[in-house]
């Protein structure tokens, strides 16, 4: 018998935006998974004899089979002990490390779409610092604003006086009030970083920063994320989407 497919939103228990998204997407099978779900009975994962139909996770307190999961949206970079109030205080730090390390393995092995796939440094994407985004973008021929960082307290980062435009990349689509060139550059950078969910900030077509944590408040962006995770064909973009 076919069982209902589940979209997992992995987020902090304190992430109200993620909880709101899970509520909005509930008709599409979305459920919130918090780090606390990893300290509940029900996880069974055998490696390397990875039998996806027999492996189970706990999502929102309920047990689900891995093959019922249609997609995962990751909204936290790592699990901290502050997420685990059900665990004895003395063990929280250790349990947080264990959960983070397990999630890294789990997210990298799932067969379904994951936004973003983890790296050894983060549960979502490569965890690049600003310097790494800028340097990698420059190598791709994208015009960048040089980033400087110093440990000396007197050296403060340069303030930006120009307006900033933000492009959000979801798969091969881009969103934001930017030029077609900026959108193409953002897409190129996302592909180079091997991420499918990314935000890039431009000032007069010069890249000033990028990260893997775009805001999902816009309906267009969140609809594109939903389509990506559930393998649904993308809807035509309305105003604001510069490419698709």
């Amino acid at each position, binding site marked *: 018998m076919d069982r209902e497919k589940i979209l997992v939103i992995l987020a902090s228990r304190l992430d109200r935006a993620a909880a709101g998204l899970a509520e909005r997407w509930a008709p599409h099978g979305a459920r919130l998974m918090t780090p606390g779900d*990893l300290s509940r009975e029900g*996880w069974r994962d*055998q490696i390397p004899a990875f039998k996806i139909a027999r492996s189970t996770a706990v999502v929102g307190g309920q047990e689900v089979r891995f093959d019922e999961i249609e997609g995962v949206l990751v909204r936290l970079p790592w699990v901290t002990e502050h997420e685990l109030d059900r665990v004895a205080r003395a*063990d929280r730090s250790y349990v947080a490390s264990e959960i983070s390390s397990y999630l*890294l393995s789990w997210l990298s092995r799932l067969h379904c779409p994951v936004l973003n796939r983890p790296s050894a440094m983060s549960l979502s994407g490569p965890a690049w610092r600003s310097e790494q985004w800028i340097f990698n973008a420059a190598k791709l021929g994208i015009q*960048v604003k*040089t980033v*400087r960082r*110093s*440990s000396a307290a007197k050296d403060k980062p340069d303030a930006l006086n120009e307006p900033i435009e933000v492009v959000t990349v979801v798969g091969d689509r881009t969103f934001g009030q930017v030029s077609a060139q900026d959108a193409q550059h953002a897409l190129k950078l996302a592909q180079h970083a091997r991420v499918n969910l990314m935000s890039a900030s431009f000032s007069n077509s010069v890249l000033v920063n990028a990260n893997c944590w775009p805001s999902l408040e816009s309906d267009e962006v969140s609809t594109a994320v939903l389509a990506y995770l559930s393998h649904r064909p993308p809807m035509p973009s309305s105003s604001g989407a510069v490419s698709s």
Partner: protein
Amino acid sequence: MIILLGVPTDDPLLAVLKCLRRMDAKFVLVDQTEMPNTEVEIEAGSEVSGALHYGGETIDLGSVTATFLRPYDFRQLPEIRDAGEGSQVWGHAATVSDILYSWTELTSTLVVNRPSDMASNNSKPYQASLIKAAGFSVPETLITTDPVAARVFWQTHGEIVYKSISGVRSIVKRLTKEQDERISDVANCPTQFQEYVPGTDYRVHVVGSKVFSCEIVSKADDYRYAYMHGYGVEILRREVPSEVSERCVSLATRCGLALAGIDLRLRPDGSWCCFEVNPSPAFTYYQQATGDRIDEAVAGLLASHR
């Protein structure tokens, strides 16, 4: 200029330092305990540049040809731990570390090893998938929060071990009947169980394309902690078959590691099982017994990059 980053009491760091000194190579030891008195800055655009202000001198990061990282968690260093989380000293050490690590990720010079490449060792099951992709077999593993599943796995394999998933408290222990009651604790934390693999332990160190191997004889489940259980450890210089050493070099390369300590077990049937790739191995422990000069190989690798 070669940078050695770590603490001066660290044996592998000291051993490499002495070799570099004998080779008359130009190097600087950046002592992590001096973080409160260290400054660093970097600039990244189409090029990367920067400077390290350490010990009264300024080192142009553009003049650095190779870096050997043996970093300690700065939060554990007494100078910083005692200052307390949130203190100016703590914040400064965090910033210096972060900027230095950022530079090691960006520089095209040799880094032994980059933090992003070392990080795979922080998740044993994640690293197991890299090990398997390199052609080694890995132990059957169950990660679970279900006591019933743990017991079924135990019954299936007869003998099993448990060990942490992360790099924290990473000690291998065999599950015994006395621990049966504690199995219900797995409900609170994903716990990793593995089939017990019988056989002989080998440690293979890879330094670039060079391989140093030894056999470890011990009755302990985890020879690194044998003394805690009253067991001894004997380390014997032993070659591994060429196809195994080639696979070890290939595995280290796949993991992006110029230096790696690979834990293998030779099963009674002659097959090889790989448990782990250590990206920051304490190779001096092994070379003291075997007479191999892993330190010279590391120093030679660092000095060969200009």
